[in-house]
Structure formats: structure tokens, C-alpha cells
């Protein structure tokens, strides 16, 4: 009896040691230098402002960073847990309005308020998740769309926050040359933080549980995972980062109004970026966000019409879903052709 016990523990230890060597090996082949270099380059980018006006470039990086944060955040729920939400811009709105109202009334700083705004969004996410995560698949997606509609109705008619006209925030006192910098660094930091967190989540026991849920929820439940708690927490977490983004974005634009946050196109972008890049991967949402923002800018610059923009987004989405459901990163990884610098998982 004790012999077998000893054997078992010996086997377990051997497996642990083996796993450890595997992990070290994976860490050695991992190109951690790439995201770090990228980050340093982007941090240094504003130095260009000494030589001329590169505000447009900074704006584009800022915009991309905000989408990276939102898409990575969406990925925690949609990619890892497999619950597709088409209403995540509600938390973008909650974060933006929470910080924006405090900025407008008390002159506080939206950037400093971002973590708090994230927490508020996460609380709402937790409460909403308790209701909507009772159903899965199509019903959940429907409820998330309804959420956007409810939020739009409420914010459009809520006098305290300015109704459909929204609220104007005090503009920054910095000179034009440096006005974008605080928001630039804040958004960059939020994006990096979100990506780092989603990496950490994916490699934690929590992330493993979420992935089990996305594969088969009933079996996950039977295996002892508290699926309800996992799902709702994932929902709250993914609301948190989106809320933070909203807080900075609102102050950056210097006005908040429902038509900025609560349009279905923003929710669609979050989903599309993840699908385009690769749902459930770490690098996927980042790549998707970069590609889609670039495409969008090009499209608006050449065509100009928002209707054609919607049409184009729809076409890309349909093509992606039909031909590359695993996205760029996912498809390349399946073929074993993923370049090392993009293997962030």
C-alpha cells in the first residue's frame, strides 16, 4: 500500500520536474524582447514632437492602443470563456461617463480616475453578468445587444448626464504640441497592462477554467469548476479594462455623449478585431486592432462615407468568419508557421 503511494508521488514529482523543464524551454524560445522593444519604441515616439508636429501619428497610436485594450479585454470573456458579447461598449460608456462626470463637475483628472472607473464598470459587469450569463450561446448574444439598447435609451434621456447632447469636459491646458501626451501614455499603459493581464489570466488556473468552459461547460461543471463564478468574474474583468479605456478616451475627446460610446460599430470592432487576429490568443486582438484601425483610417480617408465603412466592416467580418474562423494568429499557429515574435501565448 505505502509502496504504491510512494510510487505515485515519485511519478508526480517526475512529471512536475518535466513540466518545469518544458516551461523553461518555452520561456527561452519566447521572443519577450519583441513586445518590450515595441513598447520602448512607442514610449519614445513622442520625442518626434521636438522636431515637428506629429500629432496625427500620436492620435493614431492612441486610437490603436485604445482598441488593443478593448479587444484584449473582450478576449478574456469572448476568447477564453467563449461567451460572445456584442454589448461590451456599455462598459466603455460606463467608464467614460463615470470619469467624465467627475471631471466635468469637480475638475478631477480622468486619467487618475481610470482605475476607479474600471472598478465601477466591473461592478456593473458583475451585476449584469449574474443575469445574462445564465444563458449561453445565442440567447447570451441577444441579451448583450439588448443591453446596448437599454443603455442607449437611459443615457439619451438621463438629464443629469446631459441626455443625448452629453457633457463638455474642460479642455487640457497644455500647449497643442504636448496636449496629447498624458492621454497617449495613459492609453499605452492601459493597453500594455491589459495585454499583460490577459497573458497572466490565460496561464492561471482561472484561465484554464475559462477555457474548459468554452470547450464544454457541462463537463467543466462536472469536473468541479464553479462555472458561474468563473464566468461572472471573467465578465467583470473584461468590463474593468474596457471601463478604464472609456475613462481616458472620454477625457481625451473633451466631451462625452451617448453617440460616441453606445454605437453598435464599436462593439462590432471589438469582436471583429479578436476574430481577425485570432480569438483566444494573446497576440490576436493586438494584431486585429492594428490591422482594423489602419484599414478603417484608409477607408475613411479614401471613401469618407460612414455607410460604406459599415459595409466594409461587415464584408471583412463575413469573410473572416467563413474562411479564417481561427484568425491570423490562430490559423498560422495551427499550421506551425507562426513567427516567434508573434507567439505571445
Amino acid at each position, binding site marked *: 500500500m505505502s509502496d504504491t503511494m510512494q510510487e505515485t508521488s515519485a511519478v508526480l514529482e517526475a512529471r512536475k520536474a518535466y513540466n518545469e523543464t518544458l516551461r523553461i524551454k518555452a520561456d527561452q524560445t519566447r521572443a519577450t524582447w519583441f513586445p518590450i522593444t515595441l513598447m520602448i519604441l512607442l514610449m519614445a515616439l513622442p520625442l518626434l514632437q521636438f522636431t515637428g508636429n506629429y500629432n496625427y501619428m500620436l492620435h493614431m497610436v492612441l486610437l490603436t492602443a485604445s482598441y488593443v485594450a478593448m479587444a484584449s479585454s473582450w478576449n478574456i470573456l469572448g476568447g477564453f470563456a*467563449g461567451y*460572445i458579447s*456584442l454589448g461590451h461598449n456599455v462598459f466603455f460608456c460606463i467608464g467614460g461617463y463615470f470619469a467624465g462626470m467627475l471631471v466635468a463637475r469637480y475638475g478631477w483628472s480622468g486619467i487618475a480616475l481610470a482605475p476607479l472607473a474600471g472598478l465601477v464598470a466591473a461592478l456593473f459587469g458583475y451585476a449584469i453578468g449574474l*443575469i*445574462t450569463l*445564465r*444563458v449561453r*450561446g*445565442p*440567447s447570451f*448574444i*441577444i*441579451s448583450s*445587444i*439588448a443591453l*446596448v*439598447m*437599454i443603455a442607449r*435609451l437611459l443615457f*439619451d*434621456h438621463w438629464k443629469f448626464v446631459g441626455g443625448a447632447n452629453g457633457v463638455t469636459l474642460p479642455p487640457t491646458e497644455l500647449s497643442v504640441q504636448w496636449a496629447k501626451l498624458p492621454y497617449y501614455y495613459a492609453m499605452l499603459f492601459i493597453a500594455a497592462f491589459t495585454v499583460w493581464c490577459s497573458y497572466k489570466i490565460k496561464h492561471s488556473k482561472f484561465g484554464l477554467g475559462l477555457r474548459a468552459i468554452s470547450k464544454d461547460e457541462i463537463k467543466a461543471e462536472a469536473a468541479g469548476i464553479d462555472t458561474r463564478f468563473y464566468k461572472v468574474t471573467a465578465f467583470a474583468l473584461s468590463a474593468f479594462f474596457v471601463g478604464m479605456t472609456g475613462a481616458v478616451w472620454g477625457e481625451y475627446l473633451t466631451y462625452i455623449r451617448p453617440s460616441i460610446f453606445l454605437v*453598435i460599430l464599436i462593439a*462590432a470592432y471589438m*469582436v471583429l478585431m479578436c*476574430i481577425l487576429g485570432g480569438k483566444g490568443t494573446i497576440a490576436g486582438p493586438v494584431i486585429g486592432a492594428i490591422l482594423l484601425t489602419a484599414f478603417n483610417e484608409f477607408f475613411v480617408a479614401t471613401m469618407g*462615407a*460612414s*455607410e*460604406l*465603412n*459599415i*459595409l*466594409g*466592416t*461587415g*464584408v471583412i*467580418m*463575413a469573410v473572416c*468568419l*467563413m474562411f479564417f*474562423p481561427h484568425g491570423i494568429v490562430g490559423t498560422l499557429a495551427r499550421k506551425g508557421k507562426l513567427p516567434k515574435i508573434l507567439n505571445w501565448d
Partner: protein
Amino acid sequence: MDQIIQVAVLGIGLGGVFALMGSGLSLVFGVMRIVNLAHPSLIIGGAYIAYWGFKLYGIDPLIMLPVCAVILAVTGILFYKVFFERDAKSATYSEMTVLLTFAIAMIVEGALGAAFSNTQRVTSPVYATDAFFIGDVFIPKGQLYAGIVSIVIIGLLAAFLKYSRLGYAIRATTQNREAAALLGVNVNMVGLMSFAIGIGLAGAAGALTSFVFSFFPAKHWEWVAVLMSLVVMGGMGSILGTVIAAFSLSIVAAFVGTWIGSTWSTMTFFLALFLVLLFRPQGLFGEKPELV
């Protein structure tokens, strides 16, 4: 008292139109397990056909209705062939198709918006602004006709599902796809036909919509949530449930609109959706996989 009857009458009129809109959606979900988020955008497509038919040739929307239905049914067949026939066996089919229909909705909205711009339009045949009076109760003719036509179409649909051979096959496929296939039902054909019928119903609903509501391409997001709340409340795939949900919620919405404020009447549908998810996630008729 008169006011209560008045509001209820208005609610019933709208309920008929919503029931017609929702029944196509429900049929497609029942047979194909596709949650068609593009349904409302196709309704708006149908409304545009009726609108231009009236504007350019002076054809009454009620006469245009079959034309709209046929054009949309053909579009439905086309969409089915292009988008949905390819990977019906994949495990995440139902989730993927939701996103795919979301993409289609954006495509349709973008195309309509680019072609006709985002101005509000409404077809205005004479009866659209006319009304009957029964005592003090005022019945707008437009809504009355739309409601009656809707109910007739839903009745025809019910009879078709109950008595025709294709109707048998559709009901069998809804109940159990594998068993139906084993018994010799060509489930792919049934899927295609029900998709065409469902989208055709969207076209018919569009023709009615064109004179009941003002519409513009982006309006379908509002309806998507309203119609989906009907389908979820009725129990996904149950046409009877959808129709009952449509009438009851429309009447409640009419009262909310009168007593609390017209902006909040659509809120009724969304709140009902959340209440249903909270207390009865499978919907009113969810566990009975039976049609009509």
C-alpha cells in the same frame, strides 16, 4: 375606460406587425438553429422596395407586399447558398452563424445607407394617416390594415405548417433534425425552404412596416433587440410563443408609452427580455419543441 380600450387597440395593431416580424425569425431559428440578426435589416430592405414602388409607380404597399416577399425570399435563398450552407456541421455553428448574421446585417445596412442615405422615410398611402372612430375610440387605418394583414399571413403560415407536406417536414426537422433525416426528410432542402419562407416573411413585414413606422437603414438595431426579445420570450423557435409574446408585450408597451412616456415604450421589450432570462431562461414555450 375609453382610454384603456384606445391604448389596447393601438397596442394590438402594432402587436400584429411585430408578430409577423418575429414569426419569420422564429421559423428560421426553429429549423436552422440560426439566430438571424440580419432579419430586421432585411425587413428594412423590404420596406425600401415598398417605398420605391409607391413613390415611383404609385403602387399601394399592400399590393407590393407579395412582390416584396418574393424578392426577399429569393435574396434569402441567395444568402443561404453563400453564407450558411458551407459549415453546417461545425460544433460552434450556432455561435458562428450569429456573428455571421451580424456581419450580414452590417452589410445590408451599409448597402442601404450608401444607396438611399440615412434620412427617415415613410410610405404614405391615403389610409396611413386616416382613422376610424368607434364611439370615442380612434383606430388608425394604417395600423388596422397592417395588423389584419399580419394576422392573415400568420394564419396562412400556421395552416401551411399544419397541413402541407413541406409543413410536416419543417415541423419534423424542428423537433428532431436527425430523426427527420432518418425518416427520409431532405433536411437541407427543408432548411433552404424555411430560410426562404422566413426571409420572405421579413419582406412581407417590410411592406407593412413601410407605412406603419418611419424607417432608415440604421433603424434595424432598435428592432433587432425588440424582435429578439419576442423570440427569446416565446421560447426560441416556437412561433406560437413569439406571436403571444408579440401581442402581450406590444399592449404593455402601448400602456407604458401612454402613461410613462413614449420614449420608454421600447424599454418594455428589453426589460421583458431580462426578466425572462432571469426567471425562465427557456422562454414561455421553450421546453415544448412544438410549432403552432
